[in-house]
Every structure is written in C-alpha cells, then in structure tokens.
C-alpha cells in the first residue's frame, strides 16, 4: 500500500484497468502510452502491462498500468489483481448498458475490499459512437458522484479525454499518498522502533535513520 513516496521524490503508483471485455481497455491504455490505435504495426509485444513516467508539479511519478482479463469467467480473480493498487480505472462502453452495470459491480467490490484508499475513475469509452449511446451522461455522472469516483468520457479512437483522465488520476493519487505520509509521519516513531526490534547488530549506522525516515517523507 505504501508504494508512494519512495525516496521522498518519486512516486510509484499501481493502477488497475477493470471492465468487461471489448469495452476498449486495451485500446485506451495503448493510446495513452504509445499513442496508437488499432495499429497493425505496433512494436510493443503486449499491451497488458505498461508503464509511463510523468512529471507532475516537479514530482516524478512512475505509473504502472495493469490490464486485467475482462471475461466474465475471470471476474472472481479481481481481488488478486487490484490488491495494493493506488488507483482503478473502470471502463464501460457508452453504447452498452450491460458494461455499465458491470462497472457498478466492480465499484461495490472495490469499496468493500479496499475502502476509500483507492482512487476510482469511471470511464465511458467510445464517445465517437455517441449516436448509439445507451448510457445517459446524467445517469453515469450522478452515479460516479454517489460513490466518490470521478467520471470521464473518452474515445481511444479519436484520442479524446485520455490525457486528462490519467493526469487527474495521478494528481489524486499523489494527494492520497501525501495524506497517508502525513499520517504515517505522526506514528513513525512507534513503527520504526518496533521494526528495529528485529534488527541484531548495528553499531555505527544506528543513529542516522531514526531522524531520516521521518524527514524523507
């Protein structure tokens, strides 16, 4: 859970992509990391684990994006994937009411398992097919608000709304990580001493870290 704040300057975040098959999870992330859509000449071997390095307000962020298998029969494996993640992007297809229902199930599950520590983004993809829309904007947005998630509209095909989605998510995850660090900073003296209990030998370096681990945050 404490993936953020390594070294005080670089944040490492894990983001899971959840959603039914064929809603465009993979296209979304390929568009974001490689700026490609349906390209037959994709040089990457795979599009299921992608990383992106960002610099947000002077802080370095390493984003690791974990795609998950969306087929219904793999649904039960979700908890193994989203364990320890800082953010989740829940994708549905605006032309497919059913995929929106799936998102609702995911939200319930995530909140139950991970509480409020995880930043949720609900994403309506394929807005280029707006004429076939089956999930209304109002319904989706009010639902997102009711569960404490942000709602975005994207199109991987037209490259719309994707940058904003990830940038917003990173900012929110950074806020969460910073809040967590502050909390940890208060209780650091306790946890540090309990950890040191396991330690055996240490003569010279003993003095340095006690102050260091608080200030590093």
């Amino acid at each position, binding site marked *: 859970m404490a993936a953020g704040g390594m070294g005080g300057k670089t944040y490492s975040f894990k983001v899971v992509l959840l959603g039914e098959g064929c809603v465009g999870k993979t296209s979304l992330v390929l568009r974001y990391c490689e700026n490609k859509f349906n390209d037959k000449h994709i040089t990457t*071997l*795979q599009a299921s684990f992608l990383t992106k390095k960002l610099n947000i307000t002077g802080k370095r962020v390493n984003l690791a994006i974990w795609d998950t298998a969306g087929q219904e*029969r793999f649904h039960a494996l979700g908890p193994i994937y989203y364990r320890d993640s800082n953010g989740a992007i829940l994708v549905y297809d605006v032309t497919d009411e059913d995929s929106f229902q799936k998102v609702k199930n995911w939200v319930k599950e995530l909140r139950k398992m991970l509480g409020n520590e995880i930043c949720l983004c609900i994403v309506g993809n394929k807005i280029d097919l707006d004429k076939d829309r089956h999930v209304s904007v109002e319904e989706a947005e009010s639902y997102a608000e009711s569960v404490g998630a942000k709602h975005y509209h994207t199109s991987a095909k037209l490259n719309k709304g994707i940058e904003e989605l990830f940038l917003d998510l990173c900012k929110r995850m950074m806020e969460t990580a910073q809040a967590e660090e502050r909390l940890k900073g208060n209780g650091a003296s306790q946890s540090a001493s309990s950890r040191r209990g*396991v330690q055996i030998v240490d003569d010279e370096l003993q003095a340095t870290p006690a102050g*260091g681990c608080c200030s590093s945050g």
Partner: protein
Amino acid sequence: MMSQRRGIHLDQSELLCKKGCGYYGNTAWQGLCSKCWREEYQREKQQIQEDWALAERLQREEEEAYASRHQRAQSQPTTTFNKFEERKTKEKSSKVNTVTKFFTPSTKTPPKKDSTPLDAQSSPSPSSSATRHSSGDSDHATREFIDFLKPLKSGKEIFKQCRAFTESMVYKRDLGADELSECVQDFYQSLSERLHTQFKGSTDHVESIMDEVEKYMMTRLYKEVFCPETTDDEKKDLAIQKRVRALHWVTIEMLCVPVDEEIPEVSDSVVKAITDVIEMDSKHVPKEKLACITRCSKHIFNAIKVSKKEAASADDFLPTLIYIVLKANPPRLQSNIQYITRFCNPSRLMTGEDGYYFTNLCCAVAFIEKLDGQSLNMSSEEFELYMSGQAPPLWPQVTGASSCSPGSTALSQVHQRLDLLTGLGERQERVMVKARQLESDLIDWTDEVDQKVQSVLENFPPQTQNPAAGTDDGTTSAASSAIDSENVENELLPPPLQPQVFAG
C-alpha cells in the same frame, strides 16, 4: 581491525604500501607493494587451505558418526529420526562462518571451530557430494555479495547486518512461515529505508543493493524457508498437481486461447514458455524465479502476437497462461508462489513488471483450482463426465463434438476414418458384385444373341437365301420399293441397281 578494514576500502590517495615498508603500493594488490602482497596472500591462501582441510576432516568424522548412529536409528520410527536430524542441523548451523576472513584478509587465525560448520552446516543428507555442492552455492553467493559490496562506503556494515540477520533466522526456524516472512520483510524495509537516507534518493542504486541483499540472504536461507514443514505448502503442491493432471482434457478451444499452434513459431514459443515455467523451481532466489515467469510470459506474448497479428491484451494473455500452466504442470507450484510472496522484495511484487506476471500466474492457479463447467462453457454434467474420465472414451458422443482433449481428438479422427474406410469397403464390394453381375449379364447376352442368331439361321436359311435366288424381277423390285417407301428422297435417287439374274 581498523588497519584491516583499510586493506579493503581502497584509498587512491595513499600510494605507499599499506604495510608501511616504504615502497609504493598497487591497487591490484589491495594497496600493498608486491613483496608484502605476496606474503599476505600466501598466508591467506594457506590459511584457507588449512581451514578447508580441517573442515573436510571434521565432516568425514561427522559423517562416520552419523552413519553409525544412522544404523542404530534405523530401527526407530522415521519421525524421531527426523527430529534428531533437525536438532543436529540446528546445532551445527548455530555458529556459521568463515566469511569474515574472505572479507578482511585477517592476519589472526580465526578459531578453527568457526570454520567447520560452514561446510558441515547443511549436511543432513548422507551424500557428501550434495552437501559440498549446496554449501558451495551459499559460499559462492557470499563471495559474490562481498565483491559487490566492496566498492561501497558502508559495504561492510551492510554485509555484517545481512549476515547477522541470516544467522538469526536459523534460530527462528520453529516460527511459522508468516512470521519468518514478516521478519525478512521488516529487515528489507528497514535496510532499504536506511540506504535511502544514506544515498539520498538514488532509488536505482538502493534497488540494486537490495537485489544483491535478497540474493545473498535467500540463497543461504533457501533450505530453511522454502516449503517449510510448519506450513501445508507441500500438501497444496500435491493438490494442484493432481488437479492439473485431472484437467488433462481441457483444450485450447475450451479456454478460448487465441493461439494457433499450427504455426511453427507459435508452437515453438509455447514450448519455450512451458520450459521456462518449469525451470522456475530450480532457482533459489525469488528474483530469479520471477525472471523465469517473466520469460515465460514474454514467450506467451510472442505466441499471441504471431497468431493474432496484434499486441496481446490481458484478455488474451491470462487464458494462454492458464493453458501453459495446465500443459506444463510445474513442479512445486504452490511452494514457489508462497516462497516468492513471502520473501521477495515487496516493491518489485507490487508495481514492477515481474510483479504483474507473477500476479497473473497466481490468477491462473486460482482459476485452475476453482475451474468448473461454466468457466469452460459447458454444462456441469458434461464437466463431471470429463473429470471422472468417462467422457473421452464415449466414442459416438465425442465424434459428434469437435472439442475434446488432444488425445481423444486424434482418436476420434482415427475412428471417423475407420468408419469411412468400412463404408468405402462396403461400397466397393457392392460395386464388385454389380460388376460381376454385369459381366455375367454380358456373357448371357452374347450367348443369347448367338443363340438367337443361330436359331434364326437354323429356322430361316432357305427363306433368306431362296427368295433372293428364287424370285423373279417383279417381286424383287416390289420388295425394294416397299423397303424404301418411307424414304422421301427416294425419288431423287437414281433407280436402284437391279440384280441381274442369270438363272441357269
């Protein structure tokens, strides 16, 4: 002690021999001049040789004693024997190491007693070659670790801590696996925090040190903490192995794997992936085990990419990985997963690429454990039939459905072809019968024709010969005109030649 340490931490500014003999020293000789270095080196080498000789002798004695006690113990039930073995190992490994002397070219001879357990520490197995090998492994790891740490400012500190911690773990072997894991994880965390403060945020550097720390510690602890007796890892290993074996009939089609094994490159990648996931068990360090999983995954991605002509998504990857695990049935799968989870550097598992593939492997195992008919798009009755081994032998049913395990697909194909052959045979026979009938009909027919001709010849020879010979002109022309009467063009033709009768 201080002077010894300076012998390792190379100080370029001091050009004179560290021994203070007045000659210039050389960094290649750890700052000594050639003469002093030779002396030092000889002494060290000799000392090491002595230690090894002593260690060997003591081990021999130990083994002899062991063997004689073994014979006595043979009559006793194995459980007590195991306990005795354990106690013995514990006693031996309590005080481990000659390592100090690799690290500091010490002038004082270490107490001989110290050097023996290094060799004998892990010798519950009576085979001395195996013992030599395993202790050689950890010895090798120690040396590599020291080499890695040498250029670092606080290398010795790091080493001291890791060694002390590793040794302390031996006392904790009665703790549960989770507690052991917590100890190790706490150690990783506090050490990496300390390194972070020391190297001021150079994350990569800290990570590379932590990798080496993990490698050193886990090589030495592997025997103690891999699949420990306090857990039911072994039972789970056997359970998953049995499960995979029972699922031998699952096909690519059932799992919807987007891989076409007909393409040579794809089947090649599949084989490589299987080899890699099996190889995982042979590695001792969590990081190396993870590297095997990563290699396996890359081969899978390649197989998918070649088959589908596009980059693989998670939707494609997971089913393929499941298929690979089912085909490979990797040894001690659960133990390996548990070992990695417990003792791997957590940052790698949480956000790294290795962590992603590892998580997928965990998912694959979880899926295989829970697999039912629904997840293979078949009814639970059908699933039960397959699981109980009844379905594949049922020929008619199987030939109807195109999907069954590779073995029975082939069998059903053979069956189909046999059917076809039998059908062909029957048809051929029918053809033969008909042909023979036709033959005899033909013979009969020619006979009949012959007969008829004969009978006609017999009956009518005078009538055919005689009227032509016996009739006069008038009747002949009447007969010919009667024959040609229907011919419209008759009149255009020249008059027929009239036979000249020279009646004698």
